[in-house]
């Protein structure tokens, strides 16, 4: 009887206590066995404090298990790991829970995606789920946000973020905070008006919507002309970061629409190609910083804003850094948005310099033309959605960098709801004239510390670990580890398909593993 009571008590504790409460995510660095949010912690470091895999033993890494996705397509997922379960997404919007020891599926959920779904501007991908309490949250390519029970995959709620008929869709992992699920929308290539939404985690009720394109009467609206703001783009398609002490969410915004012809939208086109700092309680924009005013090269600022503190100019500061798609590494004060520095980290031919306020001085003759204009970086940028990593040990900012140019073409704007609204495009200079590198930058200045060259521009992110390692991947299917101090290659293997995802690390039974998706599979490596 006594024993039964204990069992009952244990059971009720199990039912009552939420699995992953928000404070647990906020202190993710203290529970490195788990990986509780897209970038590993709210500061978006993509750094694992696990130190079992080291410079000395990394050469012994072997596959522990491999999971093959159910339907072919590009796999860009970052797994979430909590309490022995791994939650991944599969193309286009499926969620699967795996036993973290074996890779055996525990449940899978596939939403019904209409056959006429409109996905313009990217492949139909998904980059991962968010977890909070007893639910995992996924955005879908038909513009829904769905909450699933962590133990069964059953739908708790399913809401439409916005109407896919107009080209709204979701690819990024949501960001889960205390009482808020934050999700940004994709679709700037279809002439949407971008926004960031917050939902009640329990009910799916929308708490606020903050448009990235200000409407009439709102500050910044004057940077648009006529009705151009209505199709102004500015999607918010990559997961942002969060400072719990300042209670600010940092989120990058995408290109203005149409992409390559700015004639219809004279002005700076706020808040496109910007970083916005938002109070998650009420959705108010505290500050913004625009990297590329009046962009005409499709250089979305949908890169990861990385938060860290350091001394700049003799003064300790709270910083946010971004290796922007436009080839400059920016450091800002994250309390105020004050511009501190911008340093090119890849070849660029479009800006003479960045002025004291952080505004680029454009070089003449770099606008897209009907005949094509060669400009560096390329359309996909010197960086893109693949994650950088910041190591608090080395204080270096690791960035998989793309060295490539594009002939940019200007076309005619032609808006039709739910169709491509891009007005031009580009032809990449590829082959041996394009290459890449994993670069280690001084996090406060952007100065190059070392680089490891790649033969093609990468679409794989990087992970740094307390074992003194940086993991990365290549288009050719290599998964590799570098010495975080020197960039020296220490281990590599061939995964047989393009690596187009972000590495992460976790541990189970006291053993550290690293995971990466490549081709149509997820690979997990550990020491023998």
């Amino acid at each position, binding site marked *: 009887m006594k024993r039964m009571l204990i069992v009952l008590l244990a059971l009720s504790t199990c039912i009552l206590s939420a699995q992953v409460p928000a404070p647990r995510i906020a202190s993710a660095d203290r529970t490195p066995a788990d990986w509780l949010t897209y970038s590993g912690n709210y500061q978006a470091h993509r750094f694992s404090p696990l130190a079992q895999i080291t410079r000395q033993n990394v050469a012994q890494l072997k596959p522990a298990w491999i999971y093959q996705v159910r339907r072919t397509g590009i796999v860009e997922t970052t797994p979430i790991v909590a309490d022995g379960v791994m939650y991944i997404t599969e193309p286009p919007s499926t969620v699967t829970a795996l036993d973290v020891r074996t890779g055996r599926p525990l449940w899978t959920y596939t939403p019904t995606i209409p056959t006429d779904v409109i996905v313009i501007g990217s492949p139909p991908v998904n980059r991962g789920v968010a977890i909070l309490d007893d639910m995992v949250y996924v955005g879908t390519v038909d513009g829904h946000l769905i909450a699933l029970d962590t133990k069964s995959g059953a739908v708790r709620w399913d809401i439409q973020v916005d109407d896919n008929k107009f080209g709204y869709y979701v690819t990024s992992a949501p960001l889960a905070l205390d009482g808020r699920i934050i999700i940004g929308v994709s679709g700037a*290539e279809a002439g949407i008006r971008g926004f960031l939404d917050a939902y009640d985690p329990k009910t799916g009720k929308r708490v606020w919507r903050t448009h990235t394109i200000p409407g009439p009467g709102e500050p910044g609206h004057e940077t648009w002309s006529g009705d151009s703001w209505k199709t102004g783009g500015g999607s918010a398609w990559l997961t942002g970061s969060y400072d719990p002490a300042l209670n600010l969410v940092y989120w990058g915004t995408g290109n203005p629409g149409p992409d390559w012809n700015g004639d219809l939208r004279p002005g700076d086109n706020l808040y496109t190609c910007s970083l916005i700092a938002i109070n998650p309680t009420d959705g108010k924009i505290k500050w913004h910083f625009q990297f590329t005013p009046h962009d005409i090269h499709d250089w979305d600022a949908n890169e990861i804003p990385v938060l860290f503190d350091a001394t700049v100019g003799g003064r300790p500061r709270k910083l946010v850094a971004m290796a922007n798609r436009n080839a400059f590494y920016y450091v800002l004060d994250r309390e105020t948005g004050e511009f501190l520095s911008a340093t090119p980290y890849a070849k660029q031919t479009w800006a003479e310099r960045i002025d004291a306020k952080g505004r680029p001085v454009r070089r003449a003759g770099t606008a897209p*033309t*009907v*005949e*094509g204009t060669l400009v560096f970086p390329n359309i996909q940028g010197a960086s893109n959605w693949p994650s950088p990593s910041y190591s608090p040990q080395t204080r270096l900012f690791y960035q998989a960098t793309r060295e490539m140019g594009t002939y940019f*073409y200007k*076309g*005619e704007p*032609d808006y039709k709801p739910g169709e*491509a609204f*891009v007005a*031009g*495009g*580009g*032809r*990449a200079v*590829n*082959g*041996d004239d*394009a290459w890449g590198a994993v670069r280690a930058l001084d996090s406060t200045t952007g100065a190059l510390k070392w680089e*490891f*060259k*790649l*033969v*093609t521009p990468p679409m794989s992110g990087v992970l740094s670990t307390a074992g003194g390692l940086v993991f990365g991947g*290549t*288009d*050719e*299917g*290599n998964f*590799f580890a570098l010495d975080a101090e020197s960039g020296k*290659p220490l281990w*590599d293997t*061939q995964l047989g398909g393009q690596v187009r995802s972000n590495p992460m690390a976790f541990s189970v039974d006291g053993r550290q593993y690293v995971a990466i998706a490549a081709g149509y599979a997820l690979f997990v490596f550990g020491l023998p």
Partner: protein
Amino acid sequence: MLIASLLLTVAAAQAAANVEPGKQLFNGMCARCHGIDGTGDEGPSLNRPTLSRAATDEALREVIRDGIPDRGMPRVRRLTNNELNQLVAYVRSLGRVTATSTRGNADKGRATYEKLGCASCHIVGGQGGSFGPDLTQIGVNRGASYLRQSFLGPSETLPKGTSPVPGRGFTEYLPVRVVAADGHEVRGIRVNEDPFTIQVKDSANRFHSFRKSDTKEIEKEFGKSLMPSYRGRLSDAETEDLVAYLASLRGAK
């Protein structure tokens, strides 16, 4: 009937009006590979009444819109319907130009091809060596000026879009010289490469695999070709005959 012919006339007038803006788009996006006026370069010539992959205007629209990625033609960019119409109108207008670039005699050219021993490295119709690109359909895929250049100055016309390894966009048939750790040297063409390894085929058509960390030296000879140049070794007539023969290679039918 009247309405139908009126519609036809309207359509024809619209197509004619599209030719000039179509030419501007073509010169920007297409001429680098297909040549000014569609005379062909590393991409096939388009100044022909019939295009093998675009028999109808609809098929041509699809090729322009989507590219033929596995044959080296990229999807350059998203085009509006109007821009597609302009490009189709211009490319079709090229087909009305008489092709004058191959005035040689293909039969004589074939004899030259055999005399020079081209078959030791190239396959035509299943016969020949496999070190160089298969030429069975080369007349479909390349224009006359490119074909002429390919044997007069092969280092300026390294093949593109012929590699059996898809997607990388590397320079194909790039000559490389690798010195292995034990000092032995391999010279050949690069077949594939990643940051850690390189795969090479030597002139005896043997594959070699190296880990870069195990080599002493890897030299990539950009701007060179392992194919000999025939500049100054052929008369003008022989040159044109060989171009005519290569242009006549249009696949096994």
